[in-house]
């Protein structure tokens, strides 16, 4: 939760999320190489996901230990995908 009486600018975050969503849709149909499209789209999606986690889930205002806990499944997720790839 927001500490020290600080309130995140919820509607500003909402506006950025809206703009990024529109940008994603426009970018997806540009005549660019597939790898460039995928990279740009994933970067924008991760940016949006981070905004939601940091400001709407208030992770930015939580103790650093909770950050570590929240990040803990990410290496496990990578391992899971790599394991499936090698078995495929």
């Amino acid at each position, binding site marked *: 939760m927001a500490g020290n009486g600080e309130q995140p600018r919820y509607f500003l975050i*909402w506006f950025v999320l809206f703009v990024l*969503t529109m940008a994603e849709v426009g970018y997806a149909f540009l005549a660019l190489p597939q790898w460039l499209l995928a990279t740009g*789209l994933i970067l924008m999606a991760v940016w949006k996901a981070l905004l939601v986690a940091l400001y709407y889930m208030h992770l930015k205002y939580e103790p650093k230990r909770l950050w570590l806990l929240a990040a803990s499944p990410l290496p496990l997720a990578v391992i899971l995908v790599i394991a499936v790839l090698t078995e495929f």
Partner: protein
Amino acid sequence: MSQAAASTADRHPMPGMMVYNVKLGMWIFLLSEVMFFTALIGSYIILRFAHPDHFAEPGAVLNVPLTAFNTFVLICSSVSMVKAYAAITQGDQKGLKFWLLVTILLGTFFVGVQVVEYILLAQEGFVPVAELYGVAHEIEGGALYGATFYTMTGFHGTHVTIGILCMWFVLYRAWQGKYSADNYGAVEIVGLYWHFVDLVWILLFTIVYLI
């Protein structure tokens, strides 16, 4: 232990993670959900790259403008949820009930659009297991595309539906005056779940509809 005392104990910062127990429990549950959706999305990515001829180009089968609008609706529901949380932290009962109801309506609208999308896609021959319906190869992409698409979006839609049901429960308790500026744990917990569902959809929309 009285209800008031239990609420205080639930909200008391714990020495380990420095967050109260119920909130820590929700975070651990959400981490298990990360692994659940990783399995689905990871499988999709691997199948997509292994069999690119089984998947259609973005916009060829799926309705991107409609889903982009639906994504915006879910983002709006996230901001209304966080406004409900902000309201009750300041003891604003009316604001809590108003923003919770807005969130429920937006979430219901999202699920409704998803159901309409499913119906339209099925009418065009895009179904989970094409062979069962005798419509194989009528559309671009194959059975693998339908199976992965409906599995991922279906599980997400189920999560949204569960979130809506939980919010109805929280709204019912809010009408009873159960929450206050000192006791808003349930609102925060259901909010964490709802924002996570939004976060997953942000990734799903990009991976399934745009790439």
